[in-house]
């Protein structure tokens, strides 16, 4: 018994360091202007996959991401931590995808990976917080889904048992393989990079990256095929073009507004004892407090 696992991951702008030029006029995100990180909950998902791989020899963990060329960074990051290989889905056909078009593209790529027992992904990505891609991929593949996993309690040849973290409680559920599971931020954090693997995969690269760097390491990649990160464009996956990118995205951004708050007539205070005491007296007198 061993498993074929795909982890879906996304490189996201670090929304805690967002500047003013983060959005383009058409309402899409100006990714180039932001520091990019491994979406946190996708790391939790990767950890769950690596744990299964540790327990069940022969298990293979693939990492699949859709994004621009630089998203290969998170594939390398996954290889450093123990993933077996990585796939980057990239190309202008995918540009402008909303969650549905993204899910469609990912589902086509997963089909190409062959027999898969388990698909793991983070509950949601921090740039949109929609939590929609996981369930939508499951639906596109006709698979059952288990969302908000905090722990995979057991996985057997046929079934997976998962502890789910809900808004106000926990649930333990069991479902049949193959299945898609979305993993919560409350699950175990991802292990750090492994020094040996980091050394081994340092030069792992996609064809685009090799081309960009212009360096001629053909021998290196021939001798070490595991350093080749697979890159797929739309032509490499079986798909119907009308479901990809903008045309496959039912939601459109109508407009983006800057909100201008009508500045209230506000009182400015310092933190001095006198001013704070006056404030408290005022609030008590007008029955806001007390």
């Amino acid at each position, binding site marked *: 018994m061993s498993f074929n696992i795909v982890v879906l991951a996304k490189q996201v702008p670090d929304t805690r360091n967002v500047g003013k030029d983060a959005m383009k006029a058409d309402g899409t995100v100006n990714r180039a202007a932001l520091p990019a990180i491994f979406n946190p909950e996708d790391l939790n998902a990767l950890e769950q996959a690596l744990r299964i791989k540790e327990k069940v020899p022969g298990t293979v963990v693939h990492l699949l991401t859709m994004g621009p060329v630089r998203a290969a960074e998170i594939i390398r990051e996954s290889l450093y931590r123990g993933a077996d290989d990585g796939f980057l889905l990239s190309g202008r056909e995918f540009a402008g995808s909303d969650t549905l078009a993204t899910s469609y593209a990912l589902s086509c790529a997963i089909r190409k990976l062959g027999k898969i027992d388990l698909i793991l992904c983070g509950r949601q990505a921090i740039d949109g917080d929609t939590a929609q891609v996981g369930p939508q991929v499951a639906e596109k593949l006709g698979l059952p889904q288990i969302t908000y996993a905090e722990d995979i309690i057991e996985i057997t040849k046929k079934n997976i048992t998962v502890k789910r973290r809900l808004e106000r409680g926990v649930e333990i559920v*069991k479902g049949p393989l193959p299945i898609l599971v979305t993993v919560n931020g409350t699950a175990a954090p991802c292990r750090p990079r492994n020094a040996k693997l980091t050394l081994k995969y340092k030069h792992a690269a996609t064809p685009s990256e090799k081309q960009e760097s212009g360096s001629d390491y053909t021998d290196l990649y021939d001798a070490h095929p595991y350093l080749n990160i697979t890159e797929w464009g739309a032509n490499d996956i079986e798909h119907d073009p009308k479901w990809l990118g903008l045309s496959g995205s*039912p939601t459109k951004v109508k407009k*983006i507004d800057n909100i201008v708050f009508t500045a209230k007539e506000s009182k*400015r205070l310092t933190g001095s004892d006198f001013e704070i005491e006056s404030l408290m007296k005022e609030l008590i007198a007008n029955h806001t407090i007390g």
Partner: protein
Amino acid sequence: MNNLFVYLEIEDGIVKDVSLELLTKGRSLAKQLNCKLEAVAIGYQLENIPKQVFPYGVEVLHLADDKRFVPYTTQPHASVLIHLFKEEKPQIALLGATSLGRDLGPRVSSALFSGLTADCTSLEIGDYEDKKAGKVYKNLLYQIRPAFGGNIVATIVNPDCRPQMATVREGVMKKEIFDPKHTGEIRRLEVSKYVSDQDFVIEVIERHIEKTKIDIKSAPIIVSGGYGVGSAENFKLLYELAEVLGGEVGASRAAVDAGFAEHERQIGQTGTTVRPKLYIACGISGQIQHIAGMQESAMIIAINSDPNAPINKIADYIITGRVEDVLPKMIKYYKKNTK
């Protein structure tokens, strides 16, 4: 046909507030669109549902009653909605942005290719012009939500696909009885036509749902802390102030992420929406996602070391200072003046 549908979330036979809030909003949108408000209840022993929802103006209530629908698992509920929506062709479908709604909504929208906007903070009706295609769409659902990056709000539309789907968090809309005596039509669905045995593949082995202990939604006073509070230790000052004032403690997402406060306390677009009498924002910068959840507070006091913090724009009182210095004084002078 082409009506507005609300999925009713039910726990222990009680329709959740978030669904009643959506019915109230749905009623006013349906009126603008000149269509009916319909609701779907999927569960077991649903006899008590009609009287809970008809006062909110539901005109048609669909009941899918089967023992196997409880506890909730994704596919059976999704199948009922998918098939029902294929028959009824709603123009709009609304769900709560709860753990359940966010598990169910995307599954349904994917099957119907209908597009879904999560965590809307406002819903309106309006027109949309697709300049490239030279087409004007009348009376679409504007799905409005803050978008990350500065003070921006995005209006999303689904021009071509139906239903236009959106999720909304609890507390964002206000529930209001339309008419206590209002009743509507009940339609009982023949369950076997909507679900198949293959839908029941997930087995719920154990389930513990706690009643919420923290009730920030109905607290009249909220002392809320952000990343600027600095530590969980410093948060104790907020608890102390909340305690003496008879309020609750809230938090920004940055404070929750940093582990200063529990997730249930998060206020904002992806937390709870609150409208207290008094909101004291301590060390909160005031990003749009936070403000979306508290701007309707009757009075806002901002305590921030930065005299130009964005939160100041919506504050009635701006205290420029450090949380650690200001809060002890507020506690002290409150006590002194109420003795």
